[in-house]
């Protein structure tokens, strides 16, 4: 397919959209599907036929609409009118919506105010296609301007130009560490020789995190396009998406998307009739958190046991089968097309001094609006939690926000005005991580939270290096003692020492960050530890404090 | 030296094989030398039932395997200035703690006495005949504060002599690479 054909497809699709009287998007991300979204979509489809509206009403399954706790969500757009969002829909409700369309009367109940801060304060770049693009139709993606960035890249840009735009954008890796993406690309591009590989890290292992999942499920072409542009920039012909086996829907949608893109010559040989070849294959993970670590991920793709190895050499120099390898996160790739389309400089206008663009967060825990949000970097934590997140339910008090999952830390109320960017979070002992944001109120015990995350790291340690494998076991034991009320000052000292040991001596990021939840709670909630140790009291009333020594 | 001003020393035998005490006897004539410099107030070698007050130095052999061991260890700690874990069982659990991986003491007892509980001492109808086993064998450190560790199974006589000489002279102990577990 050449550019003209592509333009024709876009034109046809846009005409069809403009001729339709209504577009009804049902959230088809895993959250809404789990509450019955698929049945709602089926019911819409059946009702459209029953009411003879096939020619004028389009029903689409789209990416995550954000308010996951109120699903299944349905977004109705009629002509140029403001869209209407319905929450907690059912098949019966779907029938009512369709029945009301000809007369223009939509149900009044179950409507969601789209002017509330949850919607107005967000800034959607990565998730901009949600509600517009059907996750399983490449035509929808094309009509929304998809693959224009790839087209422009191949037609107008040299690989160095692409790298320059990405560098200019200030984009940093969304997989956790925040490494400058442009810098990584230029390193890989400079690495000598042929046979460079591209990898998309879709192993998303943080408990409670589902940002990458919703991008993969909702807008798989966005990721493919980003990868293709990256491949062109660094000179790669083969890409892998390493996606966790627990995401069957994402896997299915990726497979569909890859097939569609190949058929339209957007992947494969001589992409858009250029000299550029690029294939993408899927590799399915088997549910080990550590396989999200890039060197373990590489070992896993190579068919070996997924265990990290010391860096250097970094994958950029010696990755898959010893070849230079570019590894980026799903969300990182999803930012690429907009950067190419609107320019790196434009992207860089958003965000803070050193953290540009937006970040997608998965809001969870004791917060009214649990779900997925995308906000500009630098938005104060308190605004994310109280304005967008709707605050704490049941009139309870905010106690802490946990960012960065098992590698992150707990942030107390005193830092609610903190602008959320990489440096600011690191400065108070947490990390941006991949975007998990768990809110806790006074019913959470910080010692217990630290114990929970330590248990996760203990169980997910790959077992290779001693400080992580054995240190997490001991730290978990000490924390458990605290939650039983049998710990002493000596145990606290041991815990602090082990936290330093694992941080400084572990081989990979898992062990190096495993103690972050402990260290940040020790820093911000020291009194709570002392209450457990000296007074044998759990202030939040969570811990057993039964005085029994854990075995 | 006047006997009343010499350091008051005790040796204690908990859940161990008494090998550490045998090694202590291997000091041979050096025992006489030590006897000049200390005052032995409690030991399995002496006919004394009650652990005395105001002990300066106690060498404690063995791990805590039963409730009697635990009670005695706490008493020793409360009455002693310098408590030394004497030998690997006291230091690390060692052979006495070999049963820990099996969980409860019951599987171990059943292995020795059979599954008929009426034939197991200290259990069921036989309670009180011997002190009940604790669920998990502890090294001393798990229950009380330990001042010094003298590892070895058993610790060699020379090392015991060195340790006692240093402590009796009131010096702080630094074993560095002189001692080893096992």
């Amino acid at each position: 397919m050449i550019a003209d054909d592509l333009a024709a497809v876009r034109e046809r699709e846009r005409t069809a959209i403009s001729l339709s009287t209504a577009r009804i998007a049902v959230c088809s991300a895993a959250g809404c599907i789990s509450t019955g979204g698929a049945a709602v979509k089926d019911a819409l489809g059946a009702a459209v036929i029953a009411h003879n509206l096939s020619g004028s009403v389009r029903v689409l399954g789209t990416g995550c609409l954000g308010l996951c706790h109120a699903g299944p969500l349905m977004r109705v757009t009629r002509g140029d009118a403001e869209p209407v969002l319905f929450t907690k829909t059912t098949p019966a409700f779907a029938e009512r919506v369709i029945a009301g369309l000809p007369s223009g009367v939509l149900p009044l109940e179950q409507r969601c105010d789209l002017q509330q801060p949850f919607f107005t304060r967000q800034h959607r770049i990565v998730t901009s296609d949600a509600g517009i693009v059907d996750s399983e139709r490449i035509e929808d993606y094309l009509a929304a301007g998809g693959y224009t960035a790839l087209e422009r890249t191949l037609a107008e840009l040299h690989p160095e130009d692409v790298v320059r735009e990405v560098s200019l954008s200030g984009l940093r890796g969304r997989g956790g560490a925040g490494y400058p993406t442009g810098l990584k690309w230029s390193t890989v591009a400079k690495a000598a020789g042929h046979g460079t590989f591209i990898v998309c890290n879709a192993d998303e292992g943080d408990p409670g995190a589902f940002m990458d999942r919703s991008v993969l499920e909702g807008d798989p072409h966005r990721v493919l396009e980003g990868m293709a542009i990256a491949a062109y920039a660094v000179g790669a012909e083969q890409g892998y998406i390493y996606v966790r086996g627990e995401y069957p829907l994402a896997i299915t949608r990726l497979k569909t998307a890859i097939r569609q893109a190949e058929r339209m010559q957007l992947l494969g040989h001589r992409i858009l009739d250029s000299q550029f070849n690029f294939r993408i294959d899927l590799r399915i993970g088997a549910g080990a958190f550590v396989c999200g670590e890039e060197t373990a991920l590489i070992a896993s793709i190579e068919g070996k046991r997924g265990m990290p190895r010391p860096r250097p050499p970094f994958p950029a120099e010696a990755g898959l089968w010893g070849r230079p390898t570019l590894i980026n996160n799903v969300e990182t790739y999803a930012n690429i097309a907009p950067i190419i389309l609107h320019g790196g400089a434009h992207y860089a206008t958003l965000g803070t001094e050193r953290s540009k663009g937006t970040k997608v967060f998965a809001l969870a825990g004791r917060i009214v609006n649990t779900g997925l949000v995308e906000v500009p970097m630098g938005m104060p934590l308190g605004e994310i939690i109280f304005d967008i997140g709707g605050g704490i339910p049941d009139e309870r008090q905010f106690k802490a926000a946990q960012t960065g999952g098992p590698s992150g830390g707990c942030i107390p109320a005193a830092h609610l005005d903190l602008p959320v960017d990489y440096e600011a979070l690191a400065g108070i002992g947490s990390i941006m991580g991949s975007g998990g944001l768990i809110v806790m109120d006074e019913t959470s015990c910080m010692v217990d939270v630290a114990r929970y995350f330590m248990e996760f790291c203990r169980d997910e340690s790959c077992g290779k290096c001693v400080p992580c494998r054995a240190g997490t076991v001991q730290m978990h034991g000490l924390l458990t003692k605290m939650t039983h009320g049998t710990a002493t000052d000596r145990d606290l000292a041991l815990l602090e020492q082990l936290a330093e040991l694992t941080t400084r001596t572990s081989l990979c990021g898992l062990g190096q960050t495993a103690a972050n939840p402990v260290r940040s709670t020790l820093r911000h909630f020291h009194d709570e530890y002392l209450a457990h140790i000296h007074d044998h009291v759990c202030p939040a009333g969570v811990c057993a404090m039964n005085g029994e020594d854990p075995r | 030296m006047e006997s009343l001003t010499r350091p008051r020393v005790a040796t204690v035998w908990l859940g161990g094989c008494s090998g550490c005490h045998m090694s202590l006897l291997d000091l041979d004539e050096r025992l006489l030398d030590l006897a000049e410099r200390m005052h032995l107030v409690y030991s399995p070698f002496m006919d004394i039932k009650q652990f005395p007050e105001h002990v300066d130095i106690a060498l404690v052999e063995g791990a805590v395997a039963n409730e009697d061991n635990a009670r005695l260890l706490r008493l020793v700690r409360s009455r002693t200035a310098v408590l030394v874990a004497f030998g690997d069982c006291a230091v690390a659990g060692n052979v006495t703690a070999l049963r820990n991986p099996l969980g409860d003491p019951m599987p171990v007892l059943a292995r020795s006495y059979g599954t008929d509980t009426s034939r197991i001492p200290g259990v069921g109808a036989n309670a009180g005949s011997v002190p009940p086993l604790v669920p998990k064998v502890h090294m001393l450190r798990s229950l009380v504060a330990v001042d010094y560790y003298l590892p070895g199974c058993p610790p060699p006589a020379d090392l015991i002599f060195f340790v006692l000489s240093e402590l009796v002279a009131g010096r702080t102990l630094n074993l560095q690479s002189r001692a080893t577990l096992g």
Partner: protein
Amino acid sequence: MSVTTLTMNGTLVSAAEGATLLAVAREHHIPIPTLCHFEGLSEVGACRLCLVEVEGSNRLQAACMTKAVEGMTVTTNSETLRSYRRQIVELLLAERNHVCAVCVANHTCELQNLAVSMGVHHVRYEPQAPQLSMDASHPRWILDHNRCVLCTRCVRVCDEIEGAHTWDLMGRGRHTLVISDLHEPWGQSESCTSCGKCVRVCPTGALFEKGTSATNKDPHFVTYLKMAREQKLWNR
């Protein structure tokens, strides 16, 4: 061959091109404790005992895997490093059932010797006392998981020198186990050639010969094998 000069513990030392910091230190008799390293085998950087400080980096580097670079300034024995190493040895001792007194490798064990050299006389961590098995199905040797430190020397020597790849790891974290073939009894392994190399490289009493009390160790035998193979010279 070009030569590199660097500073180790305040002294200028020379290094062959591509040499690791560990090799340089050994050549100059600067002691660095190691456990997963074995001369002649690939490096994995797993035990973390050989970590050293390199000036200009706040990350500690594994000496066994870090190449000497011109002008580097390396510290191998700061108080911090010594404290970390002691903690690592203690963690290992608490992790499985290292009962030295009744171990076949008592006094020949590398873990025990590390503890002695570092002055580790006791372990501050709770002994985990896991319930682990022994595999005595092989006619000549026994694998005792209670003593294994997961250094993977056996895995590497079997794969890299013998070419059999009988051993590998299964499970993760504290449940990681060395297994033969697909977790079959060693005695039934189809890939094992009964060469005994794994037994000779094992640092502890985890792999040992039936009926013997001490393991048959030779820290240089892999290097010897490799040289002999290359030069077709088998006299030692």
